[in-house]
């Protein structure tokens, strides 16, 4: 068929598209089915969260952080509380540190469960895998509901501790969920990870070398899938993570399969941290009594605090001028910065792979657009 006239096709994927995980748009230029150019378009969910926070009191920003990565509100709370605690030099109550680790790791488990379901959906296995994942996620959301009153918008952390103590019987229920979670992972693996179609769709697709991943700002599971040994829980040892034994799983090729499997391996380590934290939790107060939550006035200065969120490095850069409002409130959103390399990963692949690559990065638009 040589000599047949051909031209590039521009396709606008999104913002309303089932595989874009929200209102995300990509302008893709195609040569046949192969991607030659990809331009992400942001901002459909932009509400200038940072400006809102700068007009409110320090505490009033806490419930807004729930709405960043709305799959994992509790880790967002934690990152903000951690940055404020750094800024003002606040110590966290011992029991609250354990509660934070427990709810934080539960958040990671339900995020990774949802991730597995969503990626399978992006590959065309729409529905079934997602229902299995959401069945598991529901159990964790029930725990959050009985603890915080809300399934997703938790508003749970406070400066120097947590908002409320664990209700009676909660720890036993959490232990049961943690003990049962590996069975779900094994079920998922038995059903899927050896599946021929899944391997064909994931293995060798969009490999990312470690040097490019670091320079491009990839963080979290995406960075470790490229073989980089970097987990903020180990490096910074924030909270009480240095007390627990856990391993950092790593990939080698950095392709979609590594990014997929890394979540499965990481979930197993989270279960191990959970069981250690549940058996070690002490009695005591859950809030540092010296901190005045309402009318909170941190001294002038600035601080950058970060945690290993389920999607990557979630950081808050705060500047205080000594008043009751943040002078500058900046969020380092892992979902946005992990998309820096999206075009590089997608160029040269087929259009159908773009969905899988985007899914394997794991984004939430509430955090991308803020």
């Amino acid at each position: 068929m040589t000599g047949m006239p051909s031209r590039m096709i521009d396709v606008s994927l999104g913002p309303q598209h089932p595989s874009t995980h929200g209102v995300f748009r990509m302008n893709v230029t195609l040569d046949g089915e192969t991607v030659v150019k990809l331009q992400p378009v942001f901002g459909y969910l932009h509400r200038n969260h940072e400006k809102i926070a700068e007009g409110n009191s320090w505490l009033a920003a806490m419930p807004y952080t729930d709405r960043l990565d709305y799959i994992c509100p509790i880790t967002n709370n934690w990152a903000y509380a951690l940055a404020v605690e750094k800024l003002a030099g606040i110590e966290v109550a011992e029991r609250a540190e354990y509660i934070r680790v427990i709810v934080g790791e539960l958040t990671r488990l339900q995020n990774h469960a949802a991730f597995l379901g969503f990626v399978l959906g992006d590959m065309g296995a729409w529905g079934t895998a997602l229902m299995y994942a959401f069945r598991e996620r529901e159990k964790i959301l029930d725990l959050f509901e009985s603890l915080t009153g809300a399934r997703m918008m938790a508003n749970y952390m406070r400066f120097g501790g947590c908002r409320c103590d664990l209700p009676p019987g909660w720890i036993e229920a959490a232990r049961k969920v943690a003990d049962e979670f590996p069975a779900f992972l094994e079920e998922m693996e038995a059903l899927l990870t050896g599946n021929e179609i899944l391997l064909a769709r994931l293995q060798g697709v969009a490999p990312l070398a470690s040097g490019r991943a670091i320079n491009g700002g990839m963080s979290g599971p995406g960075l470790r899938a490229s073989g980089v040994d970097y987990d903020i829980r180990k490096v910074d040892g924030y909270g009480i993570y240095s007390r627990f034994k856990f391993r950092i799983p790593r990939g080698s090729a950095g392709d979609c399969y590594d990014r997929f499997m890394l979540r499965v391996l990481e979930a197993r380590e989270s279960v191990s941290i959970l069981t250690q934290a549940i058996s070690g939790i002490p009695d005591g107060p859950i809030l540092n009594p010296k901190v005045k939550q309402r009318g909170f006035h941190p001294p002038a200065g600035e601080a950058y605090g970060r945690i290993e969120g389920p999607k990557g490095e979630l950081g808050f850069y705060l500047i205080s001028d000594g008043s009751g409002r943040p002078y500058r409130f900046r969020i380092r959103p892992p979902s946005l910065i992990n998309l820096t390399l999206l075009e590089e990963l997608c160029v040269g692949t087929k259009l159908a792979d773009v969905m899988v690559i985007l899914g394997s990065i794991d984004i939430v638009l509430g955090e991308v657009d803020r």
Partner: protein
Amino acid sequence: MTGVLQAIRAALPSASVEQVNNPSPCAQHSLLVSCSDALAVAEFLRSSLGYDFCSNVSGVDWLPRKVKEKAASPSPDDAGKDPQETVEREIPGFLEVVYHLYSIEKKSGPLTVRVRTGDRSGNVSVPSLTPVWKSAELQEREVYDLFGVRFIGHPDLRRLLMWDEFSDHPMRKDYVAPDDYEYEPTPHDRVLARVSARTEAA
């Protein structure tokens, strides 16, 4: 921090770099780099000191401030005056871009690097560090969008979150939000005007 500062001064003696102290208990002090040396310093930090990961890029809008300072050592003529007399000094406003760097190789950080513009006017620029750290690309676009700082040498400097036709920079401290972002005259307005004219006549 002082080690990094010494290393920069040893390698780039002509570069203007100074330490900015942070009074917060976390003591994350920062390096203030002049615009003309920023790219060279960044390249040195990445290639020689191992700061391979540019984690966070933020814009900060500093309004003009008045600071009270103790007067300079009183001259003998002023001996009768109160030695604690303070003078007010005005610091002009400026925009600032703050980079938080980490070293994944050495597992150290954060190193805070600041670059400042001369004033807060509509046409200010700093050098882009995207050629050194690709991870700054989208974040510098965001700072350009929301603060109005142009990044010289950025490969694709467009608005990130606001729409392309938008003309202001919402994260500036003196930005005033309109009552309605999406207001535009529509045929509906003419209908409403006709209805209200009719009701007034009746």
